[in-house]
């Protein structure tokens, strides 16, 4: 028996609802308990970040990128710095590249932990949240140790990273790395074979590999459908080419597979962290490009020319040659891309931010169709969106 539109019920979820992970509004049409259509309504957090970029120098725009995916702000910073470096033609030093990997992977684990805790909370399991946040706090402490901020670090710099490590940083990283495998085992013993969790997630929110690519899904949401695609391998940037790690993929493309992929990704991130912590090359952490980058404070106090340059770059900004670049890094949610167009002036004339959460969210409609309303929250959780990045 077919159902006419009059028999469908339209309900509104959000924009203020705990299970939508921010200000996301969904207009859902229901046939009894089943979702017939699900239309996201976004933009509640739109700040026109791309427009703001047109009024700022490349360096000044950096802290704004923190506010995209604020759970892994270092990765956003890194993407912006990579795009700018390509425009300016700056090569960051080796040590900085390794530190970028280390911090990106710490951010990845942190973001995945927050995803795991809140995702399980949506499904009715309260305990994992406390376990996940316990380890998440350790990572925040590590960031605080190296840059003083726990969130929105703005620690990456065009040409490297802001500071070298503090003496206490690497020992603390090792301490965390020694403890974390046990923590993952703990989460998995709670969740992976939990019959309620499996019943809520197996076969729910399925998207095929072909459709996932068509929708432009990236990150764990794409890999959960069995597509082995990761920018860290496909276009190795920073120091990823030198390091060993695997790309986990799922098979069925359901909520459970996306869970498994993220759990394994945390292990792989830990592998990367261990490798960097043991083999951090010596040397400077900022490139030497006096034409574009400000001299150090020590240089500033010693050298008149350096002082002039310092003020000049601070006030006017550094000018890259005219051109354009699309640079992308593998964020925690997928491809974090920056398309930047320069006309040779100190400010970009166009910045387009490719937020993986925005593109991934468009596939929600496809994943939710024909599912139960109660499973909708499981599906939203499994796409792992951050509204700062959806709305930009």
């Amino acid at each position, binding site marked *: 028996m077919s159902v006419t539109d009059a028999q469908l019920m339209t309900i509104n979820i959000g924009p203020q609802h705990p299970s939508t992970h921010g200000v996301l509004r969904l207009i859902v049409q229901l046939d009894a308990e089943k979702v017939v259509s699900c239309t996201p309504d*976004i*933009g509640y957090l*739109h700040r*026109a970040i*791309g*427009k703001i970029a*047109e*009024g700022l120098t490349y360096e000044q725009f950096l802290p704004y990128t923190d506010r995209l995916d604020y759970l892994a702000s270092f990765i956003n910073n890194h993407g912006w710095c990579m795009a700018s470096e*390509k*425009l300016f033609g700056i090569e960051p030093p080796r040590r900085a590249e390794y530190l970028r990997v280390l911090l990106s992977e710490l951010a990845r684990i942190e973001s995945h932990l927050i995803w795991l805790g809140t995702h399980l909370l949506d499904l009715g399991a309260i305990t994992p949240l406390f376990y996940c946040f316990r380890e998440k706090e350790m990572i925040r402490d590590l960031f605080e140790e190296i840059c003083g901020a726990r969130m929105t670090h703005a620690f990456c710099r065009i040409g490297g990273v802001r500071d070298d490590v503090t003496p206490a940083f690497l020992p603390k990283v090792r301490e965390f790395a020694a403890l974390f495998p046990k923590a993952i085992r703990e989460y998995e013993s709670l969740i992976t074979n939990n019959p309620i969790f499996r019943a809520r997630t197996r076969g729910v929110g399925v998207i095929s590999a072909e*459709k996932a*690519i*068509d*929708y*432009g899904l*990236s990150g764990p949401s794409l890999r959960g459908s069995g*597509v*082995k*695609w*990761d920018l860290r*391998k*496909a*276009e*190795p940037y920073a120091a990823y080419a030198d390091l060993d790690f695997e*790309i986990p993929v799922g098979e069925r493309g359901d909520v459970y597979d996306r869970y498994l992929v993220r759990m394994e990704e945390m292990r792989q991130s830990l592998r990367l962290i261990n490798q960097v912590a043991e083999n951090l090359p010596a040397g400077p952490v900022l490139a030497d490009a006096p034409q574009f980058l400000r001299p150090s404070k020590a240089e500033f106090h010693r050298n008149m020319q350096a002082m002039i340059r310092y003020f000049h770059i601070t006030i006017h900004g550094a000018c890259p040659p005219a*051109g*354009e*670049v*699309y640079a*992308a890094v593998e964020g925690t949610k997928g*491809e974090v*891309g920056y*398309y930047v*167009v320069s006309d040779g002036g100190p400010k970009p*004339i*166009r910045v*387009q931010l*490719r937020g993986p959460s*925005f*593109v991934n*969210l*468009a596939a929600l409609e496809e994943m939710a169709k024909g599912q139960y309303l109660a499973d909708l929250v499981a599906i939203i959780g499994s796409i792992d969106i951050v509204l700062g990045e959806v*709305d*930009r």
Partner: protein
Amino acid sequence: MIPVQRDIGALLVGDLAERLPGAVRQLTHSCGECSLHVEPAHLTQVARFLKDEPSWRFTFLANLSPVDWLSRTPRFEVVYHLRSLEFNYRIALKVDVPDQTLSLPSLTGIWRAANWLEREAYDLFGVRFAGHPDLRRIMLPDDWEGHPYRRDYPLAGRAAQ
């Protein structure tokens, strides 16, 4: 995974010249990446070719971005960033938006990812996409006036009553 191949522009242009003569206007390079400029009238055909051709398979639309050149004619340009996951190719497809219509054919029938990306471009730049199934504003309220990412959009002040 196959290492990324960036220098595919000349090959691709040759292939396209054979299959769709007159579609490609020029090939440009910036920061080690190539951009293919195509004629608006051929956009759909080129996109279809890039996606379906077995030796290219650009199945992944990574990004869509209008650029407002303000003083140039035609004023707007739309850039599509495509990836071939199979061969690890990457290319930017560029097309000028005709000034008279401010409209391009929608590519939602080729890549579903284009749906929201085109809506965003329409919302913020006012570039229309003919044949889009649901061309509504996506970020701003439906009754918003103007398109704020245009470079002549006022940054301060109130609209005249």
